[in-house]
């Protein structure tokens, strides 16, 4: 039952965002396909940058509303729909952060660290330390990680969102993860 639903939902191939945009311009209800396709990535990205799940939910609604209303201005071949949508999301998150003190409540978010309860304790602790290390990174680096790991964007797509080249994004990501790794190693209690 659920399988049938999922197949129907996924009937439009991944690369067909532009087709869906064209459909949505003719028939606003077709925007639902774009919404369902991109909701998880947009919400995760915004949740990583918002102060609370409630704020992330509000921002998500705001972003899709903005996208829906600006659909006529979207142009094919300018990096793709996802980067265009995430530019809206990034602006919304930045605006929201200006209205409050910076806060990334990753600790409040549920994660799945390991396959069984008896194996989860240290994995949970490790993730808490990792989140703590992420919180100590400068805002742009946190944003980069959220675009990559919460939104699941490629380096090319991230480049289109933040206005950098693909190679520049790759370098920044490498440096960010390296500095995170060093910080992470320093902070965590290690087995001898």
């Amino acid at each position, binding site marked *: 039952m659920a399988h049938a639903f999922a197949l129907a939902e996924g*009937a439009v191939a991944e690369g067909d965002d532009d087709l869906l945009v064209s459909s949505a311009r003719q028939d606003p209800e*077709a925007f639902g396909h774009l919404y369902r396709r991109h909701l998880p990535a947009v919400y995760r990205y915004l949740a990583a940058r918002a102060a609370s799940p409630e704020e992330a939910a509000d921002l998500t609604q705001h972003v899709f509303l903005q996208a829906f209303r600006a659909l006529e201005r979207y142009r094919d071949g300018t990096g793709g729909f996802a980067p265009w949508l995430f530019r809206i999301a990034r602006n919304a998150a930045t605006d929201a952060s200006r209205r409050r003190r910076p806060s990334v409540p990753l600790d409040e978010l549920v*994660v799945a660290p390991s396959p069984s309860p*008896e194996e989860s304790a*240290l994995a949970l602790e490790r993730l*808490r330390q990792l989140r703590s290390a992420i919180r100590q990174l400068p805002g742009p680096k946190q944003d980069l990680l959220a675009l990559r790991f919460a939104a699941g964007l490629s380096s090319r797509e991230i480049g289109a969102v933040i206005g950098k080249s693909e190679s520049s994004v790759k370098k920044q990501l490498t440096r960010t993860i390296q500095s995170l790794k060093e910080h992470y190693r*320093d902070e*965590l209690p290690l087995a001898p």
Partner: protein
Amino acid sequence: MNFPWHHDAAPIPEDLSSDLHAAYAIPVPDLAFDLRAASGATLPLPAHQRFTLRRVAFATGGVVAAAAALLLTPVIFGGGAKAVSAEQIINRAQQAAFSNVTSNGKPYHLVATTDVFQKGFASRTETWSLDPAHTRTEETVDSNGIFGTSQDGTDFWLYTNAPAGLRVVHVANVPPGSLSPGSGVPSFADFLSQETIKDCHFRSLEGTQTVAGREAYVVRLDPDASNCPDSMREQFVAQGGATQGSTRIWIDAETSIALRMEQVASDGTRGYHYEVSKFEVGAAIDPSVFTYRPPAGATVIEMPNAVYAIRVLAVLTGGEDLSFKSGPPPPPNTKTPTPDANAKP
């Protein structure tokens, strides 16, 4: 004996990719997009109102959803009562498990057994919960090993009697709300959250059954590779080319507390079974239950916060050694309590 902390010390991975994916594996709520608001000039509804809206029926999606609704007839419960989706039930169960509070805010007392067939061990768990700051869970593993956690609104305790005598970690004056769910302690909530990751499972509602005298929704989870992130696919969808089996969870209709959970491998082998045998909702709980009193002779470690508590306990019980490379927590202060203290509530 298989205690939660008796596994290899978690090494820091060379490649942080999988940890970063896990750190950002944020559950996505069932958010509806209000097309009427989008089409008009009105502002979006506040979140608490939007969550109550029915999902807007979009063109093809609406037809498919209608068909799915017909197929999912068991979703409708209680002789015309409002429909509840598997998604909503799972989300409520996760919230209840993580907060240790029922979805209707009632205190409870619960006794459950767990069988991990693949690893050959069983445990009995007893939980008392008054509110998020007053909870106690004590697990007895293989009939003799005890592992417990307790918090009474100000203090937090973590204790075990294995393998070499009672060891207790105590954190005093815990600020309200500072103990995040779990606080380094493995729990059924963790298990529930990782086994119900939305993107890696199809969720379907099979109907209701009675468990421990309570009406429970039966939610089935099947592996789904279509949206599962690569970093989690091996763990949740297929291992060694074989598709993982299904999981069923029985969730109390009134309180959203999970009453039973069963994992069956694709070849029919039982993997994990959790079953609540006693569940008292609205029970009068003696507040002293939540204050743990270490017995005479117990080694008590005073810690400034709960983050490292599980790791310190691991050292004390021989699970692993500690070596703080830099920025360690303040050194623990070991003491032995007076002989007249009590071990159990």
